[in-house]
């Protein structure tokens, strides 16, 4: 790369009319690997995020397969309990911070500028920085597997003192890797917020934005609010481990429960960070394939905002059995149940949008519909867990595992896949292979339910989570679960096949790839040129 500074401005403002027809010849940047290392383009960075997320999805998936292989039968067969614990921990950390969150950020990078008519993200260099922190962070996290004493083994929630006094030496590196991922998230969220608030095309009001943009705006706010709290709590862990402080040590006047309060003050908004963009994607896809306006647009926006605000007031429902005062048990029980109201509004609106629509069932729609049904199952089991006295029975059983996997796998992950199928024509210029997509969908749906539905029963019967062995009466449920898990895991190879085939060729997609699609991204050619909307597009909503 040329050494003179600053980089020459590209011919950004000379280009044609709405729709941004500027093609690749305006990309004067470096080629090959350097192009990806140094890029400031939101589409390239979006692709990087998505590819990174997919690789983490498989690494985290392999860890899950180790867990399920061990749990296929009662007794210890394949791995030692210590390694089993490392696998559950790393599976959770990788999936939450490495797969789901970066996938949504990748989709935001690609689609937010396209949906609001912006030339790029507001702060393109910062965008590149946010991404490249992630490979560093996760290389460090994965390297703990080969460190003396092994990887973190205290669960993805890393409760003190298990993660401080009794933790393996690699915990310090785990803390630093989480710091890096956290910095990445905060900077990414700042960028997304600035883009949405400042780079909308003239005439686009907040209430004209697509639901995907809205949900990301609110998610970005949540990220900026709670990732620093996570940074704070892991810093306190670092000090407890390495500098002899007693934040989480009662002998010095601290309190292990303080860790849980701080962690869940981050952790509960965090779970909404992983589902709100999913709501947005589904709210965009369902109207497209129902060929109707989204029912209750404004109520969707307000429901999202309500969920976000309530998410700060419910954290201790993760701690019902830790010994909270009665008044806290009651407060957190009721505030948690309150969240069912805005969530119910959303499910109601999706179903009402479907009502008397001209439905077709293309792959994105299949995943979106499965999302609505299966996420709702996860929502209902959440409502059961919210009931404090009942939670004394469910706590730390497989019922909890069933609950959060229903909202995360057929919830968040299905929404990500729906989004990928939906936008693949825009990214690659080709439709995804229909048959293969359908196989992927049905195998995933069957696999996911085989995996997680029996967990409800095992949990209600008292099977504890995070234990490599179990009593004989849980054997049947666990065998079904393991078969389902391997089925789900292997069928994700089909997903990779669909994506690779779609990148390489397939049925050509026009600019507006789906009949009922409305947002601005469908006004630019498929595949979208590297630079779009260098001149803000005209935006004329029909407001009726």
């Amino acid at each position: 790369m040329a050494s003179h500074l600053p980089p020459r401005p590209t011919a950004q403002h000379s280009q044609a009319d709405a729709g941004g027809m500027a093609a690749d010849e305006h990309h004067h940047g470096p080629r090959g690997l350097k192009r990806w290392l140094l890029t400031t383009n939101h589409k390239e960075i979006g692709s990087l995020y998505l590819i990174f997320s997919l690789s983490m999805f498989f690494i985290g998936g392999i860890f899950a397969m180790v867990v399920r292989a061990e749990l296929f039968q009662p007794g210890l067969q394949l791995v030692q309990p210590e390694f089993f614990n490392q696998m559950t921990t790393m599976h959770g950390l990788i999936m939450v911070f490495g797969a789901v969150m970066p996938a949504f950020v990748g989709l935001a990078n690609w689609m937010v500028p396209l949906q609001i008519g912006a030339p790029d993200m507001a702060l393109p260099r910062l965008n590149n920085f946010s991404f490249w922190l992630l490979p560093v962070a996760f290389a460090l996290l994965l390297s703990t597997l080969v460190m003396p004493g092994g990887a973190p083994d205290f669960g993805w929630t890393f409760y003190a003192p298990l993660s401080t006094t009794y933790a393996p030496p690699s915990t310090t590196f785990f803390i630093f890797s989480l710091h890096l991922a956290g910095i990445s998230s905060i900077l990414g969220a700042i960028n997304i917020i600035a883009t949405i608030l400042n780079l909308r095309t003239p005439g686009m009001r907040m209430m004209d934005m697509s639901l995907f943009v809205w949900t990301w705006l609110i998610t970005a706010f949540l990220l900026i609010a709670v990732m620093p709290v996570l940074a704070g709590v892991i810093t306190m862990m670092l000090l407890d481990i390495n500098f002899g402080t007693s934040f989480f040590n009662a002998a010095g006047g601290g309190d292990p429960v303080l860790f849980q309060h701080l962690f869940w003050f981050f952790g509960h908004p965090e779970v909404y960070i992983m589902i709100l963009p999913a709501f947005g994607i589904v709210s965009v896809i369902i109207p497209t394939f129902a060929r109707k306006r989204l029912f209750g647009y404004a109520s969707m926006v307000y429901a999202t905002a309500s969920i976000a605000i309530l998410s700060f007031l419910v954290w201790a429902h993760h701690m019902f059995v830790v010994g909270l005062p009665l008044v806290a048990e009651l407060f957190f029980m009721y505030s948690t149940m309150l969240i069912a109201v805005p969530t119910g509004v959303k499910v109601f609106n999706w179903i009402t949008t479907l009502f008397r629509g001209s439905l077709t069932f293309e792959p994105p729609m299949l995943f979106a519909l499965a999302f609505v049904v299966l996420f709702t199952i996860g929502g209902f089991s959440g409502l059961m867990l919210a009931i404090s006295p009942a939670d004394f029975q469910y706590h730390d059983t497989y019922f909890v595992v069933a609950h959060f996997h229903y909202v995360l796998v057929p919830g968040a992950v299905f929404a990500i896949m729906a989004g990928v199928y939906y936008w693949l024509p825009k990214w690659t210029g080709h439709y995804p292979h229909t048959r293969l997509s359908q196989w992927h969908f049905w195998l995933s749906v069957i696999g996911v339910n085989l995996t997680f539905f029996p967990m409800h029963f095992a949990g209600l019967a008292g099977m504890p989570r995070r234990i490599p062995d179990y009593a004989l009466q849980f054997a049947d449920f666990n065998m079904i679960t393991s078969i389902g898990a391997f089925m789900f895991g292997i069928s994700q190879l089909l997903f990779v096949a669909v994506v690779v085939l779609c990148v390489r060729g397939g049925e050509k997609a026009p600019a507006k790839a789906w009949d009922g699609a409305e947002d601005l991204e469908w006004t630019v050619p498929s595949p979208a040129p590297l630079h779009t909307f260098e001149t803000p597009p005209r935006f004329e909503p029909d407001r009726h």
Partner: protein
Amino acid sequence: MSGGSYYVPASSKWPVLGSLALGAMMIGTGVVLVHGSSGMPIMVIGLIGILAVMALWFRDVIHESRQGLYDAQMDRSFRWGMGWFIFSEVMFFAAFFGALFYIRTFALPWLDGEGAKGVAALLWPDFTASWPLLEPPDTAIQGPHQTFSPWHLPLVNTLILVGSSITLTVAHEGLKEGHRDTARHWLTLTVLLGLCFIAIQGLEYREAYVHYGITLQAGIYGATFFLLTGFHGAHVIVGTLILIAILARVQRGHFSEEHHFGFEAAAWYWHFVDVVWIGLFTFVYVF
């Protein structure tokens, strides 16, 4: 809004180098903490790398700004960016203040047997809750002998930091009215006040360790004291470095009456650090 003039920078090598440098620093620090000083070189290289990348990255941004590549919309992007960054910092300190309040309001009284949490009291039956906590529950942990009077060094530091916010505002007013010398003088004074604060805080830390027995290991009082004042102090150091950079830019005439967001961002940051100190003075020192 934009008339198509929004500046999208071409590719840049600073972000990826920055992430490598940050990673190196963290890995190096981890090695130092876990295995000892063999990690020191990586840590130092990482730190130098970060500083270098920041300098070069900002140099690009300043250069582009001086070339007039940034329009009003870009200015708003920077404002939103800085504003939300400061909000994230607010939440970082909120976690620490939350921890302090939780310890004082709930954890210690419960350890003392208050409320319905009697079990905790069984651990150390002789423990009496108090704040500042001079005698931690376990006698193996040596608490502080005494704590600081807020009305000596902490009060002086409060006056210094509040004063520095005022001098900075005067400098800003000068800049807005085109009196670059006024801006320069008052900004210099602000930097000096920042340096005084850091020096006095250093003095206080020495006192804490040598005479007062307030250490990181001195139970929860020492832990929260150093956590809150330490991260605040680190922010004052960073803020002072930012102000020094801004001072250099004022001297070179980088800022016009209307167009000086670099200055304003630094000022926002400095005022934020000041507000955090007010919280610290109130809840760490006085009450």
